[in-house]
């Protein structure tokens, strides 16, 4: 029991160490939150905010209605878009972090210090995977939630003369759906991007510090270069686009199993519905998890032999 507790404590400190080193883990979402909140405040104090029209109607005309359904859906869309923006930024940061996580410690030679601690390569790689795959999206979601509440408050103050519309804006339906969808997106994107994070960690652990494969300045540049070369070579030689489609399906979200399941819409804009069973029974999800497991194992192996490879 003591050993298990010690392992948890070690893992927590390994994660903490990563957050110390990569300040963008918290700083990225925080910066976005500050920008959005500042924009909200500027909008609130700007005299021109009442001039914004939607479909030829002023906000006052839109809100002064007895049909509250569009307001409810609009509120969800507005707040959901903020959440998606945070998750998208988190995804980009995840990729940059993963590509650097096992590379920087080799270029700076700090790996020799970390390896002087009684921490296995598996624990180290898993801590980096946890930061990229779990901590970063969770921090982004938390920052998104605080921003959403703040901006909702700003909107409420702006349109305080329409209490009926505002009661819908703060209704349990809107916030229940928002939080439910956010957590659903958080969990599913964690699973969805696991193979991408695993592959970037592997690249980060594998890229030689010198020699012909030391292309570009960082593994993320090498990842882009390898992807482009593979797509071009496949197209030229086999006249197929399998690799291109795989990349677009995964990174471009085209193959995301829940994306096709639209169960509500606002105007012409579809919203993503929650379909956990469809998601978890999708072959692409399980193949992705298998790739994640394989790439993480290979990253552990590369880090284990990093001193042999130079």
């Amino acid at each position, binding site marked *: 029991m003591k050993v298990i507790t010690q392992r948890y404590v070690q893992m927590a400190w390994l994660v903490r160490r990563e957050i110390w080193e990569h300040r963008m883990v918290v700083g990225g979402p925080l910066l976005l939150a500050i920008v959005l909140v500042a924009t909200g405040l500027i909008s609130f104090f700007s005299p021109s905010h009442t001039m914004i029209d939607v479909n030829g109607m002023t906000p006052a005309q839109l809100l002064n209605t007895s049909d509250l359904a569009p307001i409810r859906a609009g509120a969800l869309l507005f707040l959901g878009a903020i959440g998606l923006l945070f998750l998208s930024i988190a995804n980009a940061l995840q990729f940059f972090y993963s590509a650097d996580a096992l590379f920087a410690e080799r270029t700076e030679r700090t790996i020799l210090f970390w390896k002087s601690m009684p*921490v296995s390569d598996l624990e180290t790689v898993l801590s980096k995977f946890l930061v990229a795959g779990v901590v970063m999206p969770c921090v982004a979601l938390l920052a998104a939630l605080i921003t959403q509440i703040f901006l909702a408050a700003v909107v409420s103050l702006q349109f305080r003369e329409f209490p009926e519309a505002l009661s819908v804006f703060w209704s349990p339906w809107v916030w229940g759906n928002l939080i439910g969808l956010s957590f659903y997106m958080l969990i599913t994107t964690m699973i969805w991007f696991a193979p991408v994070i695993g592959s970037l960690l592997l690249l980060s652990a594998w890229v030689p510090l010198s020699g012909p494969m030391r292309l570009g300045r960082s593994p993320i540049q090498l990842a882009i270069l390898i992807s482009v070369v593979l797509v071009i070579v496949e197209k030229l030689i086999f006249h197929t686009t399998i690799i291109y489609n795989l990349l677009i399906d995964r990174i471009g979200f085209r193959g995301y199993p829940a994306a096709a399941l639209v169960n509500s819409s606002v105007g012409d804009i579809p919203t993503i519905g929650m379909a956990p069973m469809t998601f978890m029974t999708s072959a692409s999800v399980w193949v992705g998890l298998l790739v994640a497991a394989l790439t993480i194992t290979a990253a552990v192996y590369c880090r284990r032999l990093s001193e042999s490879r130079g």
Partner: protein
Amino acid sequence: MSPALPVIQARSLSKRYGDKLALDNASFEVGPGRIVGLIGPNGAGKTTAINTILGLIPADGALSVLGLDPFRQRNALMEQVCFIADVAVLPRWIKVNQIIDFVRHIHPQFRPERCEDLMRQFDLPRKSRVSSLSKGMITQLHLALVMAIDARLLVLDEPTLGLDIVSRKHFYDHLINDYMDQERTILVSTHQVEEIENILTDLLFINRGKIVLDMPMDELPNHYVQLVTDSDKAAQARALGPIAERNLLGRCVFIYENADQSSLAALGEIRHPSVADLFVAKMQPRTVS
């Protein structure tokens, strides 16, 4: 493990990098409570030997460190072994108090109160980042972290490389006065042989991956002598089979291995060679400078 058993036991250790044999059937033992100097020229295989002992790389042959297989049981080994690979390996982005907190929570053998004592002695700024410390201060920080760990084996690979002479002296003074006891063993690899020869209990010379000398310091005078003689007796001295010779201010200096000291005494002045002289003799035998 019984205290009498060797801390490190290597048998026919070999490691190849492509065409180059970095370790060539190296066999040696290090007992508990010893301070062993692993000395060799650049590219001799020192770092490969150390990396193998630390389980950082696999090697052919049999190797046991504190009764463990270093490569397969590295995690367990690192609970009892500390190492300083280089003074420049501490992360530059981390703050002094962060790295102390980190090691305290990660290493089960870390003694915070001992670290606190050392930090007070060294007077290091707690809130500064490592990047803002001088090289000497970084070494002191690394030493404080390592000395606060109750490890049975401390491995140092060129620990004072790039430091000024004052920092180097302080490093070894602290190591001997505040760290070393009968339970601990230190394996140190360095180029600055003169600075550590007074603290060593054993010598391990390595050249081209082979162990060329493995001997306790107190046995050196029984096996190696230096003869300083005039040039007219050089031919006689040479006939007694020195392992190295050189000229020094018009006189001839010979180093002998297992020679009859009474025969040598008739030819000139007998001295004990320094570790540096012996090192040169074993690395470049029979050369004249």
